[in-house]
């Protein structure tokens, strides 16, 4: 198009005539005059003097500009429409699964179906400045750790599980601790885990709800410690102590109307570093006691078991004695019964026979035998070895 106009426009010295007004026209009423101006231009170059190169670019430039502008205006229009569409569509928003949203219409929460909170899904709000969408994270597990009851420790020491050097006393400005019900000092740390269940309360009623939770943790720790004797808090009733901390925290959350729900939380209690040795000694004394008691129990069971065994043995011995007696008597009786007929035939002879037989057996067994004749002076002198050696005796009957 511009190439087409180049030649006829070239000779025309339209410099003062066309350029000024044409330019102005182009700018002001681009759409209306563009078609009208075009035929006007070819009509103008009636004048001679073809070689005027500077004029050509001017005219062509104006034309190009007008064209460019025209096309850019179309683009702008399209863009504008797109923008309006985008603007209206921008009111559509999604709420993630762990989010809740609240629409503020002119600053005031919009209530839908009795609730101001919008759950996960696709929602619509008017664009600014009518509506404002506020999204809030909920259901995430959050943590609030108490700070009031623990000794001063740097994060690096904490990470290394290192315990800082202890002075003779605790400087209350630097070191945290809790005073127990019996006036002792312990270190307590509560780590409260919670979920935001009512985000409207938590985010819209509190500037810094997390800081309130930390304060609650601190208060709960001090509150519980102030009622517990040191031994209960440290060892005897650790679970009860924890429950006390948590129930206090729950009560405060309710009282402050914070809109959160506590999850199972931890409470750690330790003795102060300054007296740790004493507590350790108590622990080892307890171990010692348990040891001596279990030793005693071992002794007791051993003794009783041995006694039971012994008792069984003694009873068995009694049993054996009985049996032996009964058996032997029975045997004697048997023997008697068998000897009786013989005896009755000639008692005197039988008696002597038995006696002699017995003596025979006895004499054979005896190591030393002495026959003592009746001495006239009725005296008997004996000099005997304590343990007469066994040796074959010379005299045999």
């Amino acid at each position, binding site marked *: 198009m511009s190439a087409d106009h180049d030649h006829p426009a070239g000779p025309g010295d339209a410099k003062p005539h066309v350029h000024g007004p044409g330019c102005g026209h182009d700018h002001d009423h681009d759409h209306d005059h563009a078609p009208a101006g075009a035929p006007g231009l070819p009509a103008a170059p009636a004048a001679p003097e073809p070689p005027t190169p500077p004029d050509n670019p001017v005219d062509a430039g104006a034309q190009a500009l007008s064209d460019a502008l025209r096309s850019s205006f179309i683009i702008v229009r399209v863009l504008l429409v797109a923008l309006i569409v985008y603007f209206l569509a921008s009111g559509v928003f999604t709420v993630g699964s762990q989010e809740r949203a609240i629409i503020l219409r002119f600053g005031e929460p919009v209530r839908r179906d009795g609730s101001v909170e919008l759950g996960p899904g696709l929602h619509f709000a008017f664009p600014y400045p009518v509506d404002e969408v506020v999204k809030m994270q909920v259901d995430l597990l959050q943590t609030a750790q108490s700070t009031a009851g623990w000794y001063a420790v740097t994060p690096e020491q904490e990470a290394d599980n290192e315990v800082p050097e202890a002075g003779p006393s605790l400087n209350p400005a630097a070191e945290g601790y809790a005073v127990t019900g019996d006036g002792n000092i312990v270190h307590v740390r509560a780590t409260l885990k919670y979920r935001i269940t009512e985000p409207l309360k938590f985010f819209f009623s509190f500037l810094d709800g997390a800081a309130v939770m930390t304060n609650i943790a*601190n208060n709960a720790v001090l509150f519980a410690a102030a009622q517990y004797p040191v031994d209960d808090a440290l060892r005897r009733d650790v679970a009860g102590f924890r429950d006390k901390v948590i129930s206090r925290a729950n009560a405060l959350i309710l009282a402050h109307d914070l809109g959160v729900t506590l999850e199972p939380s931890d409470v750690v209690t330790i003795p102060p570093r300054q007296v740790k040795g004493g507590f350790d000694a108590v622990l080892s004394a*307890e171990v010692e006691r348990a040891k001596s008691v279990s030793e005693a129990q071992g002794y007791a069971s051993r003794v009783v078991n041995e006694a039971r065994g012994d008792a069984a043995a003694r009873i068995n011995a009694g049993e054996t004695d009985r049996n032996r007696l009964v058996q032997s008597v029975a045997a004697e009786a048997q023997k008697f019964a068998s000897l009786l007929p013989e005896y009755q035939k000639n008692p005197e002879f039988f008696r002597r026979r038995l006696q002699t037989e017995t003596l025979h057996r006895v004499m054979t067994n005896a190591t030393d035998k002495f026959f003592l004749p009746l001495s006239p002076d009725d005296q008997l002198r004996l000099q005997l070895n304590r343990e007469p050696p066994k040796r074959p005796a010379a005299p045999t009957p």
Partner: protein
Amino acid sequence: MKQTNPVTLAFGLLLMALFLVLLFVFQVRQTEVAVVTTFGKATRPITEPGLNFKWPWPIQKVTKLDRRVQNFEGKFEETLTADGRNLLIMVYVGWTIADPALFYSRFAGGSIPEAERTLEGLVRSAKNAAVGRHPFAAFVSTEGGGERFSAVEQEILATIQKDALSRYGMEVRLLGIKRLGLPDSVTEKVFDRMRAERNKEVERLKAEGTEEAIKLRSAADLERDRILAEADAQATRIRGEGDAEAAKSFAVFQQNPELALLILKLNALEATLGERTTLLLDPRTPPFDLLQKGGVSAPAGPEGTPRLSGTQP
């Protein structure tokens, strides 16, 4: 120009209207309260969210303030209890702007730091007063379930609430003890006492362990003695049964007591004189009487003297 004019005009008018509306209207969000000032003087407080009207600048101006609960902490300071003990207490406070107009005029332009400075004074005096009315045991005691602890907190809160609201337009919503401590020098004494208590505890445990062990051992010994005594008794009874049973068999001997006695005697004799016995016999005992009467008594002579036999080895 003729076709577009009405649309453009309408558009322009709309924009103009919007601009004007924006000049006259302002939003207060849910989290805010606002004060409208007319020529610098607080004239209208707004405590509810929504759209509100105002005259444009420079006639009226709007100052928006946060209506959410703000946290504030007092200083950790020593306070005397009613029974004259030093206690360090720090409280935390949650407060909101309840009367924006009053708040705005009391603290230049609704300055929060200035408000906190005032609050600090209120907290300190209320805290000192309340602590001074209660003994040390109100804070720290194994009895009472913490009711007195909470009561002191409530007392401090009530004192602050009254002043803060009527004089400064601040509502103190919540208050709690955040830190509780003893003076530095006292902690040292507490540690001494704790150490002494621990030592006592160690001694007690030792004594307890010994005592329990002794109890267990002696109970076991007792039990052993009882078991053995019972066993002995039973054994004796069993033997008695045996005797009784044997006695039945003895009935047979009744047929001829003389023979029975003889057998028993001989048995006894045999049982008594076992191996390695030394016998001293009267030569008249049969069958050795044989050695005496006949002329064969020659070897009996030397053998008969015990002295010789005794000294022989």
